[in-house]
């Protein structure tokens, strides 16, 4: 099951990130995790949160450009080689990674890595018989 991710365009200047976060705060919305791809002049802020539709609505209302993208959250064992094994499987299926970011939540010995594939549904199909656990939205945001 893909997870819905919000992406926002932010300029690289003081105050641009807090502007986004304050909109979420004012609407009582909590971020599960985020990543920021930055360049000298601008950045792309990627957010995972449970109420993504509501978040999108309030952020767009506040003037931000928001894009909803399907990403996959893969569970990775927290041990040497945990990620290497997963990447080997991705290579086997010729799934190239557009970008990824990792976080941990609650479960000991496990991390979650969010992967952006060109075609997430193709990736789900390719991985369904592999020993990889796809984390569902219901688990991620419980």
């Amino acid at each position, binding site marked *: 099951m893909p997870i819905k*991710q919000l*992406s926002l*365009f*932010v*300029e690289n200047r003081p105050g*641009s990130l807090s502007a986004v976060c304050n909109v979420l705060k004012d609407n009582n919305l909590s971020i599960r995790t985020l990543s920021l*791809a930055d*360049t000298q*002049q*601008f950045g*792309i802020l*990627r957010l995972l949160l449970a109420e993504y539709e509501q978040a999108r609505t309030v952020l767009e209302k506040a*003037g*931000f*450009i928001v*894009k909803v*993208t399907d990403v996959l959250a893969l569970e990775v064992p927290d041990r040497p080689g945990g990620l290497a094994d997963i990447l080997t499987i991705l290579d086997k299926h010729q799934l190239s990674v*557009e*970008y990824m970011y990792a976080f941990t939540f609650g479960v000991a010995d496990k991390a979650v890595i969010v992967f*952006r594939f060109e075609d997430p549904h193709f990736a789900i199909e390719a991985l369904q018989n592999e020993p990889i656990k796809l984390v569902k939205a219901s688990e991620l945001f419980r």
Partner: protein
Amino acid sequence: MSNFVVPNRIFDPEAECMPSGERVKMQIAGLRRTVEQAKKIPFYRRKFDKSGIAPESIKSLEDLQQLPFTTKQDLRDAYPFGFFAVPRAELARLHASSGTTGKPTFVGYTQKDLEIWSGLCARFLVAGGLTADQIVQVSFGYGLFTGGFGLHSGIERVGASVLPASSGNTQRQIMLLEDVKIDTLICTPSYALNLAENITAMGKKGKLALRYAHLGGEPWTEEMRLGIEEELGIRAFNNYGLSEIIGPGVSGECAVRCGMHIQEDQFMVECLNPETLEPVADGEQGELVITSLNKEACPIIRYRTRDLAYLDSSPCECGRTTKRMSRIRGRSDDMMIIRGVNVFPTQIEEALLRVDGTAPHFMIELTRPGNLDEAAIKVEIRPQDFSDKMEAMHKMRDRIGREVTAITGLHFNIELVEPNTLERFTGKAKRVFDNRKLND
């Protein structure tokens, strides 16, 4: 060192020091000749027919005010050769200025036009210290731009030697200045400052033979002149011209340096209020409107230069009897001059349209951090432009940069900005923010 006295020499005393009564007669004859020649151009013929203008209608200089204006847009609409009054076979040279949407504006010269032009360049070169024994480095680009070839012919006309270095490659320019022991340099003022800075950095300050510079092609300030003269230990002179009229040589400074002497035997220069198109008084800023008096290939009538300056008819110590004009103090339209290249905001809009059917909000910001212009375009991003992938964002930004360069020939830094962050205007949008402080 930079305060040495420049001898007062005059290349063409007959034309430059003519008693004003005699000049008026010449100008009236010139206006008639120009109307006659302009009848061969459909644009003017239509206008003359409509208001019953014939060469004989010109009886005094005031009659110039009956003649129609010509705008840059009129020239563009007649692309490529609609403003040429002679058959192709009679042309001796073609030049072009930049257009707004990638199409240039062509100008043509007959052999006689070229002779007059080289004489006009010779006049301001001699007024600013050029003598036949000097070697002159021309660091203007040689090409469609009128600067390179115009000055080149003027130098030859004086009998001096010319080193046609053309533009670019600063290290090589400095090597030439040093090794050839160049006396006089021709380039844009901002490039002269750039050269000066590099010369100082290379430890060559004070070691060059250079004594004079003739700078033009873009507006500059007295402050820049002081910097250039101090750094290079030279005297730097200002000259003015535009390709639509002839190129460099419309006016230039003399040794007294109290404005640029207008070559009034060849051009009528009016200074008008750009709104009302009524003449303004001496010393009052207005738009320069120029009429040629002797041109064969491209006679031009009341061309609206959009350049703002003021006129000065008071006598000059140098002995020339011609009117003088101030430095260019601004524009009455939104044209920018960036590193000597003319750029209109509409060209940037055109480039953005090429990237994606509709143009986003944008703003152009000009700065001069060192001695060279920097140009940036801020582009507001729209939902359809946005991707969560950085590679896609970079591709879009680079594509905008390439299209802008393809149209303007210049590099612009492209900055993507958040929506609704650029100022909105009711009425005409202010697209250009010029922070180069050209007017002191």
